[in-house]
């Protein structure tokens, strides 16, 4: 039986290849995701191991609250003396770190778009500096000297002796480069730029005078790090802890891995979409294969094969296809991993490029998915095949093995209703409470069910649908057009499945278009209504901020009425990260309309938190009560709810605190620089003048951009567009798989219609006409897929946008042109899919075709 299955596989190499292709691409995406994230993971693991090389114990501020973007709180510099007094300590030095942006010789900020711009103090004793090594020169000794990483130096033609400008939280100033440094073999820290200062200077620049971010300790010969850690810990004051350097390296790379976990999950979702699309293709293929082999299988039954044996024959074929596809897919994963790196770097995330390791998990999951999907897709057709009566071998009959339309309607409708219910419940969550994570899963499952149901039900309407969509065809291209329409509805189920595969990808694209457009429209409206400032200053890219000194400078200018700083931070709300914005409460009313409905911004200036009205209502809080907030540096606190507001569009946060309270809780965590600065010009100052003043002040801060309202709005839209580009790029694979599916189905259908095509050629149809006929058919199928996709995408887009109303996405905007563009795109995809089958059909040898059995 295995031999028979093997023989059929090899007898149809092309069919095998095309079928395997769709599985392979899905598996490749999954494997690629793993390889990609493993690569990053490993890179950072190595990085941290190296960073702590040679160090034994780290002393740092202790925090019970672990939230995003937060390091340990700084400690008093006096701790160092306590540590040095501990027996077994060979050497120990305190250090501080923070934001430092190096400028090139043209005065442009050197800002890598993914990795951070790091500043820090240099240790006097280089043994304490981990794998940091001086490439040339000496360590900085005065307040005007700096060391920079060798990569930044070479990339920007900076050599020892040059003077560069550097922006730190406290100032923009000039420094003489006294050395370039490397990190082991590497010229920089995974893409980050680094500026190292003498300790006292660093403390001043990062506003940490008299404080340390951490203390690095080296043990004396013969003292174990663990023991030393214990002895140090026993002398430390409250709020300061000692950890071994090895543990700290693990902990830090753990934190990074966790943040990567999100990326991995997101990518896997896209990979699963691709696999889901592939499963449609495979199922279709096996159905067609079984149908084409009906006679052969019936003959086997007639000569004594049992139904089970027939099932096994088809399943074994599936196993072979699945195995081949999985192997190639996993190998191809390396290409996908490279592609993912390129996609991210195309939008500005520079990632280190090292060789990607192949983990056992990647192989296991790749195989499980590849084989699982293929075999699962083959089982139903196989069981149906087993039901072919042996007499079918003798008669020339087409045995109907399909589900009846009635059953199809009933099952399809049930699946559709359940799917929609899951989505609606997950989004609005008032019927069944599933918990936040389960809700996302439920929404995903609901979406899959909707896709399945639409695919099932659409076979019932494919015929009128194709005829409707194709109505202009006969007048454009009489005979070939008519034949194409007829051919496309010949096997409604096959067409529906093929079209559905394309539907899935395009539905998600349409969904993102609608969501993106709604976000843009909502943000645009929020800026228009909520932004009273004339200018907004912020940093482009994904990380960092800029020195608060810029705001102070502008406050001095007579042309400027007010500036408002916004600084973001994460805090712990009942165990999960929540976002907040620290604002200059004295000026915010002049620059941003918050729609305060209770309390006032003056009160916020004295402490407490102001919360979006919807959340307050949802939680049943009342103004005046206290709510628990956890901060990395200051721990758990009861914070008074001092007011409510309704317009979160500009501040982009549902929780606002005053700047004083912010500084108390976020000092030294790395986010305590300005993130956004809203600037209001003084009354009567002409726009040109105020702009010139702002631009002049900002000129020194080369990493920021000054924008007026319209420009700011545009930049917000551009950010959404960028995300759309990423999402759509990730969906392309699903669309490509669907295009392969159309090509595969078409090729198999043409194979079935060999005699017909031979006949058409015999009575005078030209090769070009044959090609045209097949192209039209592919276009019809693809457009059906596109239209179905748009309908489903509209549904998803509308309900999700409605559900996000509370998140400030309160405008539903449907980009009609882009969405209609998907139909055009579908037609082009159809054309592409038809390329190979059409050529093959046109090349058929007429005589062989008409005598084809």
């Amino acid at each position, binding site marked *: 039986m295995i031999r028979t299955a093997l023989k059929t596989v090899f007898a149809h190499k092309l069919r095998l290849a095309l079928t395997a292709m769709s599985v392979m691409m899905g598996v490749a995406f999954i494997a690629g995701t793993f390889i990609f994230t493993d690569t990053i993971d490993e890179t950072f693991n190595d990085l941290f191991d190296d960073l702590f090389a040679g160090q034994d114990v780290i002393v740092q501020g202790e925090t019970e609250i672990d939230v995003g973007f937060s390091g340990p709180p700084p400690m008093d510099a006096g701790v160092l003396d306590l540590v040095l007094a501990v027996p077994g300590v060979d050497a120990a030095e305190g250090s501080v770190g923070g934001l430092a942006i190096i400028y090139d010789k043209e005065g442009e900020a050197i800002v890598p778009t993914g990795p951070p711009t790091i500043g820090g103090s240099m240790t006097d004793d280089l043994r304490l500096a981990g794998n940091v090594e001086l490439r040339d020169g000496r360590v900085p000794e005065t307040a005007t000297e700096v060391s920079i990483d060798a990569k930044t130096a070479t990339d920007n033609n900076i050599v020892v002796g040059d003077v560069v400008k550097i922006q730190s939280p406290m100032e923009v100033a000039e420094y003489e480069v006294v050395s370039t440094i490397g990190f082991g073999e590497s010229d920089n820290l995974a893409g980050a730029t680094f500026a190292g200062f003498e300790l006292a200077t660093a403390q001043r620049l990062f506003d940490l005078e008299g404080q340390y971010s951490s203390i690095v300790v080296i043990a004396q010969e013969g003292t174990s790090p663990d023991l030393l850690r214990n002895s140090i810990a026993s002398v430390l004051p409250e709020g300061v802890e000692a950890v071994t350097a090895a543990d700290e390296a693990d902990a830090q790379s753990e934190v990074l891995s966790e943040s990567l976990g999100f990326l991995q999950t997101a990518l896997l979702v896209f990979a699963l979409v691709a696999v889901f699309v592939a499963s449609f293709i495979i199922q279709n293929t096996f159905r067609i294969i079984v149908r084409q082999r009906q006679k052969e299988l019936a003959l086997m039954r007639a000569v004594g094969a049992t139904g089970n044996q027939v099932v096994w024959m088809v399943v074994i074929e599936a196993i072979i296809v699945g195995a081949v596809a999985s192997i190639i897919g996993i190998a191809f994963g390396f290409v996908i991993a490279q592609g993912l790196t390129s996609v991210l770097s195309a939008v500005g995330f520079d990632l280190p490029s090292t060789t990607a390791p192949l983990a056992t998990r990647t192989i296991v999951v790749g195989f499980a998915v590849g084989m699982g999907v293929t075999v699962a897709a083959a089982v139903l057709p196989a069981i149906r095949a087993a039901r072919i009566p042996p007499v079918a071998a003798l008669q020339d009959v087409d045995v109907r093995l399909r589900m009846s339309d009635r059953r199809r309607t009933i099952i399809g409708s049930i699946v559709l209703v359940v799917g929609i219910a899951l989505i609606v419940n997950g989004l609005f969550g008032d019927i069944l409470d599933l918990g936040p994570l389960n809700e996302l899963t439920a929404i995903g499952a609901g979406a899959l069910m909707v896709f399945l149901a639409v695919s099932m039900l659409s076979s019932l309407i494919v015929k009128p649908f194709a005829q409707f969509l194709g109505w202009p065809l006969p007048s454009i291209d009489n005979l070939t057009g008519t034949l194409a329409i*007829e*051919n496309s509805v010949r096997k409604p189920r096959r067409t529906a499945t093929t079209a559905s595969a394309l539907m899935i990808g395009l539905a998600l694209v349409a969904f993102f278009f609608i969501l993106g457009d709604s976000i843009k429209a909502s943000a645009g409206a929020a800026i228009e209504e909520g932004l009273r400032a004339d200018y907004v200053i912020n940093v482009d890219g994904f990380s960092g901020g800029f020195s608060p000194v810029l705001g102070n400078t502008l406050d001095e200018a007579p042309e400027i009425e007010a500036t408002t700083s916004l600084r973001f931070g994460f805090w712990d709300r009942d165990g999960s990260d929540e976002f907040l914005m620290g604002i200059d409460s004295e000026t915010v009313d002049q620059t941003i309309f918050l729609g305060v409905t209770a309390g006032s911004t003056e009160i916020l200036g004295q402490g407490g938190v102001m919360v979006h009205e919807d959340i307050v209502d949802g939680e049943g809080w009342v103004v005046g009560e206290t709510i628990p907030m956890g901060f990395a540096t200051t721990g758990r606190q009861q914070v008074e709810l001092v007011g409510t507001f309704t317009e979160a569009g500009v501040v982009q946060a549902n929780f606002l605190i005053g700047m004083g309270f912010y500084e108390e809780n976020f000092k030294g965590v790395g986010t305590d620089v300005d993130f956004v600065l809203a600037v209001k010009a003084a009354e009567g100052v002409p726009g040109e003048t105020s702009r010139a003043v702002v631009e002049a002040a900002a000129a020194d801060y080369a990493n920021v951009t000054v924008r007026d309202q319209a420009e700011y709005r545009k930049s917000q839209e551009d950010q959404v567009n960028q995300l759309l580009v990423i999402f759509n790029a990730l969906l392309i694979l699903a669309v490509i798989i669907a295009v392969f599916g159309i090509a595969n189905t078409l090729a198999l259908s043409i194979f079935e219609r060999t005699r017909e095509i031979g*006949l058409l050629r015999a*009575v*005078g149809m*030209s090769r070009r006409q044959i090609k045209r006929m097949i192209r039209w058919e592919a276009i019809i199928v693809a457009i059906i897929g596109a239209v179905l996709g748009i309908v489903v995408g509209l549904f998803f887009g509308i309900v999700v946008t409605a559900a996000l109303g509370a998140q400030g996405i309160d405008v539903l905007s449907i980009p009609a042109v882009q969405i209609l563009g998907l139909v055009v795109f579908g037609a082009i995809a159809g054309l592409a899919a038809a390329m190979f089958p059409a050529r093959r059909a046109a090349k058929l040898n007429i005589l062989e075709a008409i005598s084809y059995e």
Partner: protein
Amino acid sequence: MTTTQATSTGAVAARIDSGTKTYGQGDTEVRALDGVTAEFESGRFTAIMGPSGSGKSTLLHCVAGLDVLSDGRVFIGDTELGALNDKDLTLLRREKVGFVFQAFNLIPTLTARENVLLPLLIAGDDHDEAWFDQVVGILGLEDRLTHRPSELSGGQQQRVAAARALVSRPAIVFADEPSGNLDSKSAAELLDFMRRAVKEFGQTIVMVTHDPVAASYSDRIVFLEDGKIVDELHDPTPDSVLDRMRQFGA
């Protein structure tokens, strides 16, 4: 052995000149046609007979431009097929040639009417409605025109195929065992129609058959054996055909 003398004064619709067709090479070489020379006059109904494997279909395919000779020349009218590329051959088949095959003659997705008009639809030409009605009328297909092939009997299907072969008024119609799959009554109807097309409309038909009764509808029979023309019979009757076949031991 070859018989080239014309027995009619009419023009020649198609001819093959020293046509040879071989398949395979070396030991496995098969000479399906071995130096065949023949003419098919306009307005006549020619039958090609011979035992199975004698090269009848090959001859038909080569003359009809569906296949290419290994050696020799084929003319339809004044056009030599060997000089034509695929595009010209396609055009020639569309405009000058009609076909009726033994089975699977019709496009299942098209109605009977569309199937009849297929060559004209392919060409994008208008059709002559009166001629269409006449052909369809003679074949008794008037009330079957909106049906799909699957809704037609075998005999009706072959008649639709015959109508298609005639509707574009081709210079020559080729039929390969057109009645091979039909019961005797349907076969008789079809063959009778073909003979009428020749007699009443001056259509030229070349038909391959191994059935003496079918062959007897023709004006002239060409006998093939091992890829060579071995004999010829004019104005045959079923008996004379059978006689001749017995003579050759076929």
